[in-house]
C-alpha cells in the first residue's frame, strides 16, 4: 500500500513486518525515530510477541543482540555515529560469532567536533568488521533492504548493516509502498539458526582460538562474504518477483553505456547525481553513474565491469580517510587494477554539508576536462582553513580549532572578550 510517511517510520514498520523476536536500542540521533516507532508497535501489541529492551548503551544494545541471536531469536537494533563506535567491540564479536543480527545505521558524522548531521564516516569505519553493509538510495529502498537484510543475514549466518543517510532519509517524508504481511512472510521464512544455545543440545560458543585455527575462522568469514556476493543479486531478484520492485543488489548503473566519465557514489546522493548526469547528458557530455548498493562484500567484478570501459572515474564519497583521501576510492581502484584511466576522489558532504547540483556540475565539469585535482573537497572554505593555518603558525596557544573556525565564520561567539 502506498503511503506518505517518514523514512524512519517506514523502516520501523518494515522491521516489524519481519517479525523480530528481540529489539534492543539506545537512542542516538538520527536513529531515534526508528526505535521509537518500533517501541510503539511493541507496546501497542501490533508487534507481538516481541521483547523491546531499553538498554543503557550501544555496547549493551549489541551485547543483548548477541545473546538474543545466539538463543535463536531474530534480533534487530539501530544506531549511528558515536553509538556505532561505542559498540565496536561487540560489532566485531557479533560477526566473529556468525550471528545474523540486522542493524540500521542512520549514517552520521563522527566527532570531535560533535556533529549530528549526515556523512558515511560511521559505517565506513566498520568496513572491515565482517558485517555485510548495504546502502539505501531512498526511503523505499531502505524499507526494502531491511526485509532483504533479515533473509540474507539468516541465510548466511552473518550480521547485516543497512546504511541509510541520517536526516536526509531518516527524517524525510516520502511516498513509500509498504508491503503487506503476507508478502513478507512469503519472502522471509522463520529463522532457523545454525548454532543455538539449547539445553537439549548444549554447545559452547565463543571459545578461545589460538594460532592453530584463527586464520581459518577469519577466512571462513571472508568465504561467506564471497558467497553473499552471489546471494545478494538472487535475493534482490526474488524480492522483485514478490514485491514487484527493484531494490538492493550489488550495484546499479545509470546511463553508463558509452560513458567516458562515470561517477561512483553510495546512498541518497545518488538521486542528486542522477539529475546532474541527466543535465550533463543534455549538454552532450558522455557521463554515467554507478551506485554501489553492497559495500561489503565489495563487488569488485561488477564495479570493474561497469567502469572498465570509461576514460575517467570520479568517486564522490561522504567519507574520508585522514592522511590518505577516499575510502570508497581505494576499493574502486582495487577493482580497476591494471586498467589505465583517470581517477578522481571528491570528498563531499562531511558533517551534513549540502551537496548541491551546482557544485556537482562544477566539479564534474572539471573532471571531464581533466583539470580536477585528484583529491578534491567539495565546497571547502579555503579562507577559514588558511586563516586557521596562519593562526597556528603565528602563535603557539592558538586555541580550540572548531571554535576558532566558527568565530571566523561569525556563527557563534566562541569566546567572550
Amino acid at each position, binding site marked *: 500500500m502506498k503511503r506518505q510517511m517518514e523514512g524512519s517510520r517506514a523502516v520501523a514498520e518494515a522491521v516489524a513486518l519481519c517479525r523480530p523476536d*528481540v529489539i534492543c536500542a539506545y537512542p542516538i540521533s538520527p536513529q531515534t525515530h526508528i526505535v521509537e516507532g518500533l517501541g510503539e508497535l511493541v507496546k501497542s501489541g501490533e508487534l507481538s510477541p516481541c521483547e523491546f529492551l531499553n538498554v*543503557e*548503551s550501544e555496547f549493551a544494545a549489541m551485547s543483548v543482540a548477541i545473546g538474543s541471536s545466539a538463543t535463536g531469536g531474530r534480533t534487530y537494533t539501530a544506531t549511528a555515529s558515536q553509538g556505532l563506535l561505542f559498540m565496536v567491540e561487540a560489532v566485531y564479536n557479533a560477526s566473529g560469532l556468525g550471528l545474523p543480527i540486522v542493524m540500521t545505521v542512520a549514517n552520521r558524522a563522527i566527532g570531535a567536533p560533535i556533529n549530528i548531521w549526515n556523512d558515511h564516516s560511521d559505517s565506513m569505519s566498520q568496513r572491515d568488521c565482517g558485517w555485510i553493509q548495504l546502502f539505501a538510495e531512498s526511503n523505499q529502498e531502505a524499507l526494502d533492504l531491511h526485509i532483504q537484510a533479515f533473509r540474507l543475514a539468516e541465510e548466511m549466518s552473518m550480521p547485516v548493516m543497512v546504511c541509510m543517510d541520517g536526516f536526509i532519509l531518516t527524517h524525510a517524508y516520502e511516498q513509500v509502498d509498504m508491503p503487506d504481511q503476507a508478502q513478507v512472510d512469503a519472502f522471509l521464512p522463520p529463522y532457523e539458526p545454525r548454532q543455538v544455545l539449547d539445553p537439549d543440545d548444549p554447545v559452547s560458543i565463543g571459545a578461545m582460538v589460538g594460532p592453530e585455527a584463527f586464520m581459518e575462522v577469519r577466512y571462513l568469514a571472508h568465504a561467506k562474504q564471497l558467497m553473499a556476493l552471489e546471494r545478494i543479486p538472487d535475493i534482490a531478484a526474488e524480492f522483485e518477483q514478490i514485491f514487484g520492485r527493484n531494490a538492493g543488489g550489488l550495484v546499479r548503473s545509470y546511463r553508463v553505456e558509452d560513458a567516458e566519465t562515470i561517477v561512483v557514489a553510495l546512498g541518497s546522493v545518488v538521486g542528486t547525481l542522477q539529475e546532474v548526469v541527466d543535465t550533463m547528458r543534455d549538454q552532450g557530455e558522455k557521463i554515467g553513474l554507478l551506485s554501489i548498493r553492497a559495500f561489503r562484500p565489495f563487488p569488485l567484478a561488477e564495479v570493474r565491469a561497469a567502469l572498465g570501459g570509461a576514460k575517467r572515474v570520479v568517486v564522490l564519497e561522504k567519507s574520508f580517510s585522514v592522511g590518505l583521501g577516499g575510502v570508497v576510492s581505494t576499493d574502486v581502484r582495487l577493482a580497476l587494477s591494471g586498467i589505465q584511466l583517470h581517477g578522481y576522489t571528491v570528498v563531499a558532504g562531511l558533517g551534513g554539508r549540502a551537496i548541491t547540483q551546482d557544485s556537482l556540475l562544477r566539479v564534474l565539469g572539471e573532471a571531464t576536462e581533466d583539470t580536477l585535482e585528484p583529491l578534491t573537497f567539495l565546497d571547502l572554505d579555503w579562507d577559514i582553513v588558511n586563516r586557521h593555518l596562519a593562526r597556528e603558525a603565528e602563535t603557539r596557544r592558538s586555541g580550540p580549532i572548531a571554535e576558532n573556525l566558527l568565530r571566523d565564520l561569525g556563527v557563534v561567539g566562541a569566546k567572550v572578550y
Partner: protein
Amino acid sequence: MTQPIKFYQTGTFTVGNRLLPPEQRSVQSSIARDNSLNSGHRACQGCGEALGARYAVDAAMRATHGRLIAANATGCLEVFSTPYPESSWQLPWLHSLFGNAAAVGSGIAAALRVKALKAGQAQSDIRVIAQGGDGGTTDIGFGCLSGMFERNDDVLYICYDNEGYMNTGVQRSSATPPAARTATTMPLGPEPGAEFGKGKDLPLIAMAHEIPYVATATVADLRDLEAKVEKAMSLHGARYLHVFVPCPLGWGSASCDTIKLARLARETGLFPVYEAEDGQVTDVTTIRRRVPVEEYLRPQKRFAHLFGDPGRPDLIALIQAGADRNIERFGLLGPQTSEDAS
C-alpha cells in the same frame, strides 16, 4: 539415620553428607550432579574460581532440572575452560566479551521469553546465568550489569571475586583490597600496595538497585553457596551472587590454603556473608569470634610487605578497622554479642 543439625555445623566440616537428610545434602555429593564444569580444564591448582563455579553452576543446574544457559565474561574462567577445540562446559554456554556478560544474559533471557510466548507459555522453563570475575563485573562490565539490574532482567549474575585481574597477570581491579600487592600496585612508597579509600562494594551497589535477590558467599561454605544459588533460582528477575574465591597464583598463597583463606576472610569480617531481598538485608552468616586480620593476611605473599621488620602495623590496624566496620555494619557477631564485642 539422619539427625537435626545446626546450620553452622555444616561449615565446620564435621558433619558429613551421610548425616544429613537427602534434601540438605550438597549437590556435589550426588552421583546425579551435572558436572557442568567438567574435569580436565586448565585452572591452577587450588583455584577458588573453578571450585566456586563448579558448585554454583551445578546447583543452578539442579534447581532448573538442567534447563540452563550460561553467558560468560572473558577472564580466567573462560580461558581455562574453553581452549579450542576443548570445552569443559556441559551446558549451553556463550562467551562474548569481557564487559558484556550481563547484557548477553539479558539478550538470552529476552529471546527465551519470546520463544516461550510463541509456544503458548507465560515464561520459559529455561533459565539464564551470567558469570564473570571481579574485573569483568565491578569494572569493565559494570555498566551492563547495572543496566541488567535496573531493567530487572531475569538473569542470575554470579561474580567470582578473586580481587584482581588474574588472567592478565595480577593487576589491580576495583575489588582489590587496600594494601594488597598487585602488578600495578607494587609495595613501594609510603602507602605500599593498593591504596586505602578506593575500590567499590558491588553487593551493596547491587542492593541499591533494589533487585529481588543479592547474596554473598565463599568457597569455604560450599553448602551455603549451593543454597544461595538454589534460592536465587527460585526467584525471577535480576539476581546477584558475589562469591569470594581465593587465587593462589595472584595472592601468593599455598594451593592447599584456598578454603582456609576463604573461611578466614569471613571470620575476620573482611568479607561479610549475607543475603538481601529487594534491597534489604534478610540474613547474615554470623561469626563465632572475631579473628584478627593478621591470621588472614599473613599466609598471602601479596600482603608480605605488611609483616617482617619493621612491617606496617599501622596499615594492618587500618585493615582491622575495615573488618571491624563490617562486623558492626552487618552485625556479624550476632545480636546478643555485638554489644560486648568491642
